[in-house]
């Protein structure tokens, strides 16, 4: 410091303030850029240098960046909405109407918030699919897969708590149904429901609880876990795309570029593109707002938000305890165990970075997707028109006739499929891929049926006859 003083007059106040914040000028050399990445609070979530290969657009598709942009938009528009919204059953709906009709670009802000929430769920699921199908969750990235699952759950919960806010018909009935599902959760279900909605109907109590979760509990949790998730990518190293049958790469010899500007510019470009598309979409497509909530009269048919229609479709076919507890429980368990059981530890069997693992994996993915979609559609139609399970198992409780029996039969079918693929010589990772693909295709098919093929009293109809 003393030496500096002796050099000449002190710089001006503004310069000194600026230098107290950013110690160094914007770097002109790679060495400086690396140092900036290491020293900056936000930039240090990235490694100072990244493999050239990791920037390939057809590998990550920029889905993580899209998700972060959407989260940012949700935060910004969410803060604005909080200033105009009244969280009370009597005033909530009117405050939304005032927002869209009287406040400057109020409708656009609400549209952006609504569509960002929907898109964030889509982008998160696509991101999960990308990571799954490129085996990017294989060691050493197991824990980041779990963090990702946690984020997906928080995004779904944020969407769910968010759509009670407008207090319209969708809000009221979807929340009534979803919280009633808790009554089928053994031991703690009823207490959790009481904690959330106060015991009786969805009312002021429930709205207050959901509002608190939606604006003060979930967003900061998401922000913290997202930061951790990105930082783990740096610590666990990027997974790198590989061609079919390309041997694992030698990490010490791959070409690397500095994060500034190569990765950073790519991210900023993608972010701006995502933002532009979102604003264009939200300008033209208004967020839906149904009639004000009416606790005595649900709409007919009463459908949840489109992303929960797969679940609602399951509820039409199976006993609620199985849809509420058994199916989600097994799915979550499978997804949690996946990163710890999927990979073959032998280095020559490493498949990280190869789309669909192998040539056989690609065939199996296509076959399983077709099987999952086709069988699901066939079973839904059969259950609607021909299958009468309670009559077949006359006298038995529906928990058995519409729960244990059909779920057991389906599970047995999946086990046989998994086993027979093994007999054909598929590796465990390829069999897992086949099973995952089949179930995901089945869930997508259920969603499509629920959204487009269900009419009055949830009867099966063709979309153009609705």
């Amino acid at each position: 410091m003393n030496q500096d003083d002796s050099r000449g007059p002190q710089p001006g106040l503004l310069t000194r303030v600026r230098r107290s914040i950013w110690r160094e000028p914007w770097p002109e050399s790679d060495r400086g850029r690396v140092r900036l990445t290491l020293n900056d609070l936000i930039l240090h979530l990235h490694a100072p240098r990244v493999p050239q290969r990791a920037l390939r657009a057809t590998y990550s598709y920029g889905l993580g960046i899209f998700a972060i942009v959407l989260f940012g938009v949700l935060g910004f528009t969410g803060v604005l909405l909080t200033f105009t919204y009244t969280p009370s059953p009597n005033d909530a709906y009117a405050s939304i109407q005032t927002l869209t009709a009287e406040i400057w670009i109020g409708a656009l802000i609400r549209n952006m918030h609504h569509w960002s929430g929907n898109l964030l769920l889509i982008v998160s699921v696509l991101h999960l699919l990308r990571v799954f199908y490129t085996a990017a969750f294989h060691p050493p990235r197991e824990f980041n897969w779990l963090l990702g699952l946690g984020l997906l759950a928080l995004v779904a919960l944020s969407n769910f708590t968010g759509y009670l806010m407008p207090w319209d018909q969708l809000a009221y009935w979807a929340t009534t149904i979803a919280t009633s599902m808790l009554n089928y959760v053994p031991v703690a279900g009823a207490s959790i429901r009481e904690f959330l909605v106060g015991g009786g109907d969805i009312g002021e109590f429930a709205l207050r609880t959901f509002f608190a979760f939606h604006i003060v509990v979930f967003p900061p949790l998401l922000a913290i876990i997202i930061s951790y998730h990105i930082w783990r990518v740096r610590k666990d190293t990027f997974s790198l795309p590989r061609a079919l049958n390309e041997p694992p790469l030698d990490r010490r010899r791959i070409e690397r570029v500095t994060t500034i500007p190569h990765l950073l510019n790519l991210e900023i470009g993608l972010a701006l593109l995502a933002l532009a598309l979102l604003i264009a979409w939200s300008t033209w497509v208004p967020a839906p707002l149904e009639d004000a909530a009416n606790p005595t009269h649900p709409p007919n048919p009463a459908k949840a938000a489109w992303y929960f229609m797969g679940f609602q479709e399951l509820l039409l076919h199976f006993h609620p305890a199985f849809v509420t507890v058994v199916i989600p429980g097994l799915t979550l368990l499978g997804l949690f165990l996946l990163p710890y059981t999927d990979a073959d530890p032998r280095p020559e069997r490493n498949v990280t970075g190869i789309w669909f693992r192998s040539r056989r994996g690609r065939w199996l993915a296509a076959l399983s997707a077709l099987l999952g979609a086709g069988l699901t559609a066939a079973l839904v139609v059969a259950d609607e028109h021909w299958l009468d399970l309670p009559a077949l198992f006359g006298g038995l409780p529906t928990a058995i006739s519409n729960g244990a029996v059909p779920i057991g039969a389906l599970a047995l079918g999946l086990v046989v499929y998994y086993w027979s693929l093994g007999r054909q010589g598929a590796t465990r990772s390829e069999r897992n891929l086949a099973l995952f693909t089949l179930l995901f295709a089945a869930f997508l098919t259920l969603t499509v049926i629920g959204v487009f093929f269900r009419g009055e009293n949830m009867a099966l109809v063709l979309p153009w006859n609705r």
Partner: protein
Amino acid sequence: MTRRDFFGLTWRVLTAFTAGQAACIGLRFLASRKAEGSFGEVLIAGLSGDFPLETVTPFEQARFFLIRFADGGFLALSSTCPHLACVVGWDTARRRFACPCHGSEFERDGSVVNPPAPRPLDRFAVLIENDRVKVDTRQALRRTSVTPEDLVYAPTTPPPAPGAAPATLDSTAPGQPGPGYR
């Protein structure tokens, strides 16, 4: 155990205890919140003659249907679906109750024709005094199956079989505060 181990363990235990305490305080605070108001009352639906035989009369705000059967028996069915709490509607053409949320269907006596509903529609207690039909909507009575005893007859109409159908119902007596609508 060295002195360093002892203090290390002590700090860890105290930290865990503090965190646990914070969690307990938070949960206890939140659990003591109270919901405002409750649903239900003893409601006079009308005179028994107001309800022709073989009819289903909806009471939308009070959330029940008053059904009168061919033999003159009354039955009050909650319109809240026992599956996931949607509100069922009466389908006049098919003479069934149907749920718009998950497609459950119920007979006129509340029994399940079509799952996913796991049990019949809940009923409310009906009481006929001085020819006035009263329905107690404070407590929905759950059933695992439907029985003829669920029906209530006006004292003037003779019950179908001798000695059947009690004039008053088993559960809550009118005038006593009920536990509220669930």
